[in-house]
Every structure is written in structure tokens, then in C-alpha cells.
């Protein structure tokens, strides 16, 4: 089967600083993969390479088997790849509703409309005219997820969604992500919170020194093995 997204020996840099030295990663349609690794190892850079904010300087990226040669900032979105970025990146000068509408820019067809997102997160409807940054951390995360869903993505990339959230909110997030996975959307989850990872992911890949150093099926590795391959 053709992978939905495939990175092959991808290299990337910021300015002169080379961060990725050949990352291999593949995600099949509907699959749930975790990307793990220590702080500062380059997990976000993998996402940034797809978003063209880090410069890809080697290797190949394929989406549904098709090679993507020229990456612009909006390319990933047009290919059905939505990102819930680290730190959420809610635009403070837009209302909640405008943050959501922004991601309807491409008018991709699918189940996710403004109403559907409000159905999933009623609090966003209640406060739709307030600035997105007036929300609590957990609510902002919902807004960031809602915004990504508005793209009607085939692949949802979440970069440390549990960061800064209270434990009960992280549990809620787990439920939401599992429900989303059940809709058939593929998920690439970047997380430090291993319990959440275990809840969601079927496969994992560990990033170390700019490349994937370990990978496998979630069911075949226990918590300690996972921890040590991350810390390695």
C-alpha cells in the first residue's frame, strides 16, 4: 500500500544549522504513529520541514506516492496535512471563529465544518467572538485542534499537544484524539507524555542525532524499553 506521507533520508536546516541528517518515516492512511525523542532533538523540525519553515536540503518527501519537489508554506495544507503546532499558535488578533475560518481557506471538502467543530467543542461556540488567546490552555488546544480539523485533513500532526496542560485535561485530550482516530484520519503524534502516546499510537519512531534511531510497534515494546531508547 502507498504511504500517505513518506520521508526518505530527509535533511533539513535552519540557516547554516543542520538539524536533520536523514530522517526516514512513513505513515499509512489512517495509521497512528508517534514521533518521540529528547528535548531539542529535532521533532518540531520534522514538522517545520513539511511547513517549509525549516529548509529541506536533502532527501525526498512523498505524499500518496507523489514526490513533493517544491514545498511552500501552504503546500502541506493543500495536500491534506494539518498541523496542531507546538505552543498552539493561536492568532491573538483574530476571534475564535476567525481562527477557525482561516483554516477553511482552501475549502477542502469533508465532514469538518464550523458547526461540526463547534459540536465537538461547544465552549468554542459559546466564546466564538472573543480573541482565541482569551481561552485557557486546554481550550486553546481544542481551538488549535479544531482549526486543524477545518482543513478536513487526511493526516493530523500534533506537536506536543499535552504540553502545559493539567493531568485531567490531558486525559480529555486522549479521549478526543482516540475519537478522532476512529474517524479514519491518520495521526502523527509528537509527545513526551508516554501514557498519552500509548493510548493513541500503533507505531513509534524515535529521533536521535537527526535521524530515526529506533522504531517499531507500540504493542511490542514496554514502557522501560521505550524510555531508554528515547534517552539513549
Amino acid at each position, binding site marked *: 500500500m502507498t504511504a500517505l506521507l513518506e520521508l526518505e533520508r530527509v535533511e533539513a536546516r535552519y540557516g547554516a544549522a543542520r538539524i536533520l541528517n536523514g530522517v526516514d518515516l512513513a505513515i499509512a492512511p489512517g495509521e497512528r504513529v508517534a514521533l518521540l525523542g529528547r528535548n531539542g532533538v529535532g521533532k518540531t523540525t520534522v514538522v517545520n520541514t513539511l*511547513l*517549509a*519553515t525549516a529548509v529541506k536540503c536533502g532527501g525526498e518527501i512523498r505524499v500518496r506516492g507523489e514526490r513533493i519537489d517544491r514545498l*511552500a*508554506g*501552504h503546500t*502541506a*495544507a*493543500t495536500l491534506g496535512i494539518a*498541523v496542531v*503546532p507546538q505552543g498552539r*499558535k493561536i*492568532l*491573538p*488578533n*483574530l476571534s475564535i471563529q*476567525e481562527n477557525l*475560518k*482561516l*483554516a477553511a*481557506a*482552501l475549502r*477542502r471538502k469533508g465532514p469538518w465544518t464550523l458547526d461540526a467543530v463547534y459540536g465537538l467543542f461547544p465552549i468554542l461556540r459559546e466564546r466564538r467572538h472573543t480573541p482565541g488567546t482569551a481561552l485557557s490552555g486546554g481550550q486553546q488546544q481544542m481551538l488549535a485542534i479544531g*482549526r486543524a480539523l*477545518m*482543513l478536513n485533513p487526511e493526516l493530523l500532526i500534533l506537536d506536543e499537544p499535552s504540553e502545559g496542560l493539567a493531568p485531567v485535561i490531558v486525559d480529555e485530550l486522549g479521549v478526543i484524539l482516540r475519537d478522532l482516530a476512529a474517524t479514519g484520519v491518520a495521526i502523527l503524534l509528537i509527545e513526551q507524555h508516554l501514557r498519552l502516546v500509548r493510548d493513541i499510537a500503533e507505531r513509534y519512531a524515535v529521533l536521535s542525532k537527526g535521524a530515526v534511531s529506533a522504531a517499531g510497534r507500540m504493542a511490542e515494546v514496554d514502557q522501560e524499553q521505550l524510555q531508554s531508547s528515547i534517552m539513549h
Partner: protein
Amino acid sequence: MLINALNGLVYGSLLFVLSAGLVLVYGLRRVVNFAHGALYMLGAYIGWSVATLYGFAAGVVAAGVALAAVGVVLDLVLFRRLAGRQPLITVIVTFGVLLILEDVVRSVWGTGNRALDPPAALDGVVEIFGAPFPVYRLFIVAASAAMAGGLAAWLRWGRTGLFVRAASHDASVAAMCGVRTAAIGPMVVGLGAAFAGLSGIVAAPFLSIHPSMGSEILVLSFVVSVIGGLGSFAGAFVAAMLLGQVQSFGTVLLPELAALLPFLLMAGVLIFRPQGIAGTKG
């Protein structure tokens, strides 16, 4: 009194429309565009040339369209590269554009003053509380209000306006959401330049057309932007109206100080609000 206030309103409206273009470009590119005054002047000259042949309305359209095109080229060639550079570099480069455009105007149109009569339909005076007032000046206020209102509505409620606001705050987030940010830049700078050109041709029958008209009004437009708080439309509006009145009453009441008043006003505002009327710190 009332006539003075009205004249201040006329001048303030012009200043606001001109400054709106400056604010728009600064908001997206963080480039303080010194060439903005030259674009205003170029709009006046192009509009004048077309207006003398085909009538005033054609002149207005020509100024808007031609300057929009100039703006698109400016963004693709220069501003895109200037975004994120040190302010000093952007000042030097856009100042260079200003000098080039002024020279172009001098060699094409000469150094003398040109006058443009208001179109027949807008020529004449009306009585306002017993005092005569030129109809064309009221037209300036109406045209400025329409342009500013149109821009505000587009930014506030338009689909593309939403994209512009998003890209102005964080282009990478807008792009992540599917906005073609590469197209937003030329569009915004084109629109900003069109606003400069339109205010140039609209101002032409009111002020006169000459090669330094751009630099003259640019200084005031900067005062508006600084008083308003860089990048804020609401602030620029208040500042432009304030400055219009200061100019109008200043020339009558304190003629020997009139040229200084805008700067005194700016200094006064900055002492109490260093970030400008509507600016945020930093």
C-alpha cells in the same frame, strides 16, 4: 471657525487614506515605506496626465490601477526581501526608491507645478451655515470615507481580509492553514500603493502637483503613523483627524508656528504614550 474645522477634516481625510496604505504595508511586511510619498506623487502625475486627456474619472482609475501595479512590482522585487531586515536597511532602500521615483517624475513631467481643475460636476461652492465652501473638498471627505470604510470592511469581514490579518500577525501560521501567503504580499503592497496613488489624484485639485509634494506629505503621514502607533488603523485615524485640525487651525491662529505644530503634537503624544495612541509596547 466651522470652515476651519471643515478644512481640517478635508486634510485629515486625505492624510488618513494616505497613511492607511502605509499602515497596511507596515502591518504585513514590517517595512516603513519611505517611498510611500513618492507613490502618492506618482499617482497625482499619472492621474493628471490621463485626466487632462480623458477626464477626471479616468484619471482616478488610471492612478489607482497604475499604482497598484507599481506596488505589486515593488513587493516582488524589494519588499519581500526587506521583510525581517533591520529597520535601517529598509529605510535606506525605500528612501532610494523615493529618490528614483522623484527623478523619474522630474524627467517625464518636468519640475514645474501642474494644476488640475476639479471635474465640472464637483466644481463650485455650497453654502454651509452661510459660508461658502468648495464642493470638491466635500468630495475629498466622501471619497476618503468610502475608501477607508471599504478597506476596513474588507479587512474585518472579507475572506481575503481575514487572510491578510492572519498573515500580518504570523505568516507561517496562516500558511499552515492553507493561505497562499506568497500571494498576500504583492496584493497588500499593491493595495497600499493604490491607496497612495488614489489619494494623490484626489488631492491634486486641492493641493497642487509638483515633484516634492510626495516628500512634503510623507513627513506628515509619518507623524500620523507615529502618533497613531505604528501599524494601527484606528490610531492612524484619530491621529490624521487631529493633525488635520492642527494644520487647519494652526495656519490661521499661529501662522509662524504652523509648520512646527505637527511635530510638537508628535512630541507631546510621545511623552505621554511612547507607543502612540493605539500602539502596543515593543
